[in-house]
């Protein structure tokens, strides 16, 4: 009996493979044909000026054949990849065993990445460059997670996020240099001040949506930068703030002196200690951001943010105060930006308005969009790709931007809703199933 019922099922699943394979083959063939037409003149025939200035040409059919074969093969690979990671509902021609294997791999990404991050200072202890890069990536992961609250969850497009980063950095720098406050007192103060600025920005933009909201937030970022440049007596203007104290391990400085950490532990002093300390500090701050965001998503405020992104009118009909909901989203995102800013100031030891240009806002926003709006893992991966990948292309020199831009365009064509486009529900009864990005709204600002 079981055999009888199983047979049609397997036949029907085999039948669903066939059109997929034929479709891929046909698509690859068309791509190869287009490549043949294009490349026959571009690669197949090569012209040059001869020794007497006359036109000479020679053929390179071998190269042409190689190119067409590459396009054919590449087209099949791309199509297969699309079937694997494509959105829910596409015809999947990959065997279920491979699919479940991929699902396991996908679940394992986050813990593996976390363990690896913890081990980075151990593995690369002697490679200062990698440690510095790691700190940079983690800073952007934290900024991305902070902005994700505003853009990804609440659906409010914020192009001036760098303003909060700057407020945090200057809060720490000025409090520490003027009043001698320690890093651990200044850190929460920087967060609170940035959150306050978030509310300040929030009020005038409550009624704005979409493009208009983006423009006002963009202007806000510029206003903060211009204030910093022009308020010379307080901020030092374009010269910035120098001599910002380094962080201490709860009062124990990481210096070569007798009261330093190295002397207390009885080990030889090394400047790497400070780098490793900074690495774990930003990792802790980033993980705090992540933890709080994940918790908030499961609380009524987080659900209200997401509901606001989905439909603001329905929110109001359900008695949700959209004003405070928006303001808390701005304030929470800004607070994390401020904390990251304080870290930036203590790491650099010197800050100036040049560090807080629109370019930074755009970069952080790109990380959030590329990661998949709302996805914590996606944002972390995107920060790794954007910051780490950018370093990877360093060898290409002046083509670096070009290649990087092309890579981003290709990625957005392949995954228009970001690396991780699915939305995980915040609460479930029976099974925790991801929601297709087709249904999730991007928010109207």
């Amino acid at each position: 009996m079981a055999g009888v019922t199983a047979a049609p099922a397997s036949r029907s699943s085999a039948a669903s493979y066939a059109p997929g394979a034929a479709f891929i083959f046909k698509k690859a063939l068309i791509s190869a044909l287009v490549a043949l037409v294009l490349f026959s003149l571009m690669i197949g025939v090569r012209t040059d000026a001869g020794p007497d200035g006359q036109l000479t040409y020679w053929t390179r059919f071998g190269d042409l054949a190689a190119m067409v074969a590459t396009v054919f093969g590449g087209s099949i690979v791309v199509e297969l990849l699309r079937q694997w990671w494509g959105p829910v509902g596409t015809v999947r021609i990959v065997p279920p065993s491979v699919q479940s294997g991929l699902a396991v791999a996908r679940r394992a990404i986050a813990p593996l990445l976390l363990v690896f991050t913890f081990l980075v200072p151990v593995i690369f202890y002697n490679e200062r460059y990698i440690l510095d890069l790691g700190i940079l990536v983690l800073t952007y992961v934290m900024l991305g997670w902070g902005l994700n609250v505003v853009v990804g969850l609440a659906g409010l497009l914020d192009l001036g996020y760098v303003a909060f980063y700057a407020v945090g950095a200057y809060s720490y720098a000025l409090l520490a240099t003027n009043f001698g406050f320690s890093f651990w007192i200044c850190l929460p103060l920087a967060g609170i001040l940035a959150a306050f600025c978030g509310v300040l920005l929030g009020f005038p933009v409550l009624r704005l949506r979409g493009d208009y909201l983006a423009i006002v937030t963009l202007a806000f970022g510029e206003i903060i930068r211009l204030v910093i440049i022009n308020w010379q007596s307080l901020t030092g203007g374009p010269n910035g703030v120098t001599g910002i104290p380094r962080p201490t391990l709860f009062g124990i400085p990481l210096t070569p002196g007798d009261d330093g950490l190295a002397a207390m532990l009885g080990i030889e002093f090394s400047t790497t200690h400070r780098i490793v300390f900074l690495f774990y500090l930003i990792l802790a701050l980033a993980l705090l951001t992540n933890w709080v965001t994940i918790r908030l998503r499961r609380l009524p405020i987080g659900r209200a943010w997401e509901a606001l992104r989905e439909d603001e009118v329905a929110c109001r009909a359900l008695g949700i105060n959209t004003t405070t909901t928006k303001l808390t989203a701005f304030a929470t995102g800004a607070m994390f930006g401020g904390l990251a800013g304080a870290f930036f100031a203590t790491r650099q030891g010197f800050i100036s308005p040049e560090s807080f240009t629109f370019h930074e806002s755009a970069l952080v926003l790109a990380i959030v969009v590329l990661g998949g709006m709302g996805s914590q893992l996606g944002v972390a991966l995107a920060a790794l790709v954007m910051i780490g990948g950018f370093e990877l292309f360093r060898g290409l020199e002046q083509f670096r931007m070009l290649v990087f831009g092309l890579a981003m365009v290709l990625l957005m064509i392949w995954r228009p809703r970001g690396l991780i486009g699915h939305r995980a529900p915040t609460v479930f009864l029976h099974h925790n199933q991801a929601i297709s990005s087709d249904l999730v709204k991007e928010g109207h600002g």
Partner: protein
Amino acid sequence: MSGDCILSVDRLSMRFGGIVAVNDLTFSAERRKITALIGPNGAGKTTVFNCITGFYKPSGGSLKLTHGDGREIQLERLNDFRISKQARVARTFQNIRLFPGMTALENLMVAQHNALMRASGLTFLGLIGAPSWRAAEKRAIDLSKLWLERIGLLARADDAAGNLPYGDQRRLEIARAMCTEPALLCLDEPAAGLNARESAALSELLLAIRADHGASILLIEHDMSVVMEISDQVVVMDYGVKIAEGTPRQIRDDPKVIAAYLGADEDEAIAVMESGT
């Protein structure tokens, strides 16, 4: 008529520039009864709804909501989310407005926002995972489950609302409105786009809501089978004014109503009726 009114609309007017959408409308809805607001397209029914639920500020007139404990609230003085939060008036929309990217369960959880916000100590108690918050969250999930069961969507609780069939979305929106525990439930064309079987199920649901939850319902509806079957009181509007009011039976035989729906004079309507009988 002066019995136990939950909502009394008194001389309500709504003008958009020179256009008078609602003119001097007076009617009342009784507690634990279903009041239907009907009329041809463009009669101003949805405008009345938008005034009651705070999406429009009326140009004139008053909207008085009387709670069971005698507390009176002037709706035209409240705006926006406060109508739902303080006056406990819930509504659904003519074109469904669910949160499509959230699951059915999440939709119902969002509806309990204000109660949960209080329970989570404005987020702070929830952030540290206080036991009182956990208990409140569990109660909220139980209430959601109860409503999902009532509308027959318990098995699809974890599906995205946008993936549900149309009829289920309509019912989910009603359940979501009920999760705010309203005193007055305003439904804007709940039967639009439903087939006969789904309409019948909807009528049953609305009658059950009235019987079990003591909610008063105000509904706009074009589906006369639903209106005639479940309403206790019918108010008919045309061109922004009330043209008739009464029980479904009275309304069915009112020549003014028939004239409005046929777009004919009253005399012609009477003639048609007489020739028919």
